[in-house]
């Protein structure tokens, strides 16, 4: 069990989200329960493509947006 002081905090869809240091985008997707197939990922306004999610590490203070297609006209 890691101490809270060892955790980093990111902003996920506008909410604070603690993460273990070194967590990747895929780690985050697993935490929130997304298979990642139908989610667009932006880190600090930059799109992270599926092939880069396993290696892209999140940093303290990163602003992460997870977006899906929902109903709209």
């Amino acid at each position: 069990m890691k101490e809270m002081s060892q955790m980093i905090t990111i902003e996920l869809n506008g909410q604070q989200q603690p993460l273990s240091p070194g967590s990747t985008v895929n780690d985050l997707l697993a935490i929130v329960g997304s298979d990642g197939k139908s989610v667009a990922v932006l880190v600090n306004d930059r799109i992270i493509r599926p092939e880069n999610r396993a290696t892209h590490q999140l940093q303290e203070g990163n602003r992460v947006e997870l977006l899906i297609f929902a109903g709209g006209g």
Partner: protein
Amino acid sequence: MDVLQLGSYTFSSRLILGTGKFSNSRVMLDAVRASGAQLVTVALRRFNREQLEDDLFGPLSAIEGITLMPNTSGASTAAEAVRAAHIACELSGSPFIKVEIHPNPQHLMPDPIETFEASRILAKEGFLVMPYIAADPVLAKRLEEVGCASVMPLGSAIGSGQGLATSEMLNIIIRESGIPVIVDAGLRSPSEAALAMEMGCEAVLVNSAIAVAGNPSEMAEAFAEAVAAGRKAFRAGLMQKSGSAVATSPLTSFLGTL
């Protein structure tokens, strides 16, 4: 074969469906199937782990013959719409983008300046741009000139059910346009969709009228039939209107012979 041509894409259905306001995803998906629509618009929203059923990408992609046309709703500037288009394309792989920029939630009227700028940028980048606009013939022509795949003027305000309140302007846009004109927003009844097609629209986009109907799937079918009938009538050629009666039966050489 009479098809709707948008860029290099062809569609046999001329009914485009919106996916908002349905009571749940199952009802929406049933209506999409019943409509026979091949082009369906969706919106970008934040992922919510408590509402996984909101995610429509998988279920819609599973319907055979469906092409997604993401929209940029929520954007209030051209820059936001361009950003939304890039994200949507990343997610869907579809070249279609419905540019929808309405900064005022009270009336939801599209911002012509931001819409033009976003459409210009996205068309240049290779998107098949489908801008939602007021029924403005000048703007429609300018959007054609910058390479949009269609123009989508409103029949009346989004979700209002006021029908073809802009029909005078729509007629001018249709007459002047070299790209497909698609009425988007405001339609309430299948007869209005048929009328839009008879006027020469290439397609109609319907959402609320189907989504909030008592039986959405049945209404989707009704719209599909109306759109097909309106298109057929347009192609068949409507008779000219006359200011006075024109007899359909012979009025002479009858009584005098008795």
